């Protein structure tokens, strides 16, 4: 049976070139980059090169790049670091952020900071004016993700940063889904901090980075050895950083080609699915959509059942339904977009990657309608639930 991976927003396969670039750091290049002797210094050269590669991609200075353990740590550092440095104040974020931001914000709220969660429109996009309205004289930070990981909406970061600049408030974006796939020059975006992760761009897991614009006040979460210019102590994950640098370099060389190809696949998927399956909603958009991601809600069918059925055919996707996540609530992103809760239970996320082929898309389109038909035949939710679909539509 062929295996088709359509869950690239969860993680991506490590590229062969990246793995090969990393291997020496699990062998002969074992020195600690903080050591002054030659073992350490020959490794430090590679760490610095990786930092420069990431800085180049962002249009930043290498001094502004801090290696972390991944996107979650980067997000935690951005929110808690700014908050701890300020000691008190108000934070603005949105209702569709990744849990790494949402839970950092709620943690800070418990510690005495005020947090405003800005809603999104039904298309899943944040209105910059809502951010402006949320700002207060004591606002210390705004955090809005670049691309939503569940539905693929691209947020108006430039417009928001114009507002935060004017107000003199630090602005962080979680660019874990967009980095290496969309242009992410920090000056173009206007951000003061940007989170990224290696494993979303065919690099290794357990490595990420936080861009911190020079002059941004931030307290470190991890202290001890003064590495990363005291902003994140601990001996660096050199192999991971080198892998991340290589993955960044490679992603940039093919970014536009992949974007174009996946845009075509997305169009094909949306058109065919809406034609072949009754009562289906494509979440988000249609404007400002990331080409590799499709979130779809199918009336009268539950998400995990679709996921398992697809898996039995060798196709891996993800679901936004409650039962899969171990919670009884549907995805907070779908709820924030106003998707009916019953319809939200029947949500799948298809996320394509650089290796996705037209044949794989066609195979998915061949089998998915019959899976929906089989599960619907088993469902007690009949015509009365079509009303929910019509409302959502």
């Amino acid at each position, binding site marked *: 049976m062929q295996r088709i991976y359509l869950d690239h927003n969860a993680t991506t396969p490590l590229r062969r070139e990246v793995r090969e670039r990393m291997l020496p750091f699990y062998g002969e290049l074992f020195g600690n980059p903080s050591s002054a002797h030659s073992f350490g210094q020959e490794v430090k050269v590679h760490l610095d090169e990786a930092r420069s590669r990431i800085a180049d991609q962002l249009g930043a200075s290498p001094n502004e790049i801090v290696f972390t353990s991944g996107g979650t740590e980067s997000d935690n550092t951005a929110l808690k670091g700014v908050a701890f440095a300020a000691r008190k104040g108000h934070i603005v974020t949105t209702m569709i952020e990744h849990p790494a931001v949402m839970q950092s914000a709620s943690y800070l709220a418990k510690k005495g900071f005020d947090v405003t969660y800005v809603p999104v429109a039904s298309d899943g996009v944040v209105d910059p004016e809502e951010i402006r309205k949320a700002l207060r004289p004591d606002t210390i930070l705004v955090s809005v993700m670049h691309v939503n990981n569940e539905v693929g909406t691209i947020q108006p970061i430039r417009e928001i940063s114009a507002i935060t600049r004017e107000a003199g408030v630090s602005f962080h974006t979680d660019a874990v889904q967009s980095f290496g796939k969309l242009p992410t020059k920090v000056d173009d975006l206007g951000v003061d901090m940007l989170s990224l992760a290696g494993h979303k761009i065919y690099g290794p897991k357990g490595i990420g980075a936080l861009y911190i614009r020079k002059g941004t006040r931030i307290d470190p979460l991890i202290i001890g050895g003064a590495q990363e210019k005291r902003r994140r102590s601990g001996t660096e994950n050199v192999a991971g950083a080198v892998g991340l640098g290589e993955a960044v370099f490679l992603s940039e060389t093919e970014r536009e080609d992949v974007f174009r190809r996946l845009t075509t696949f997305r169009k094909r998927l949306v058109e065919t699915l809406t034609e072949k399956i009754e009562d289906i909603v494509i979440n988000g958009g249609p404007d400002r959509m990331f080409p590799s991601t499709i979130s779809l809600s199918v009336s009268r069918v*539950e998400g995990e*059942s679709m996921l*398992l059925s697809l898996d039995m055919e060798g196709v891996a996707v993800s679901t936004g339904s*409650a*039962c899969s996540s171990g919670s*009884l609530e549907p995805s907070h992103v779908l709820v924030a977009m106003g998707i009916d809760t019953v319809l939200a239970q029947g949500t799948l996320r298809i996320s394509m990657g650089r290796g996705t082929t037209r044949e794989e898309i066609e195979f998915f389109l061949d089998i998915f309608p019959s899976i929906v038909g089989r599960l619907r035949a088993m469902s*007690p939710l009949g015509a009365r639930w079509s009303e929910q679909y019509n409302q959502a539509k």
Partner: protein
Amino acid sequence: MYSEKVMDHFRNPRNVGEIKGADGVGEVGNPTCGDIMKIYLKVKDNAIEDIKFQTFGCGSAIATSSMVTEMVMGKSLDEAESVTNKAVAEALDGLPPIKMHCSNLAADALHAAIKDYREKHGK
């Protein structure tokens, strides 16, 4: 995540469907939190002559619905009433803990169908 038995019942659910003119019908769950199960009974001589189910839910919800119908087919109503959600999960070689709470409602649906039968038939 799921045992082989759960996947077998998900893949090949037994007794799916609706019984027209059923003697008892039970529906439990709430689609808002992801699962709803409906059980139809045909009863003869105080025993389950036929049983079918319809389920909206996750893999575990479908598998538990299927398993409960197998467990009670041909059994007396009293025997069927003694089947618990825990027994259904055990018959499937276990379920993940969260699924016990949110998707193993199959015995509840069966009990609701038996109750409906008893109320309708005064038994």
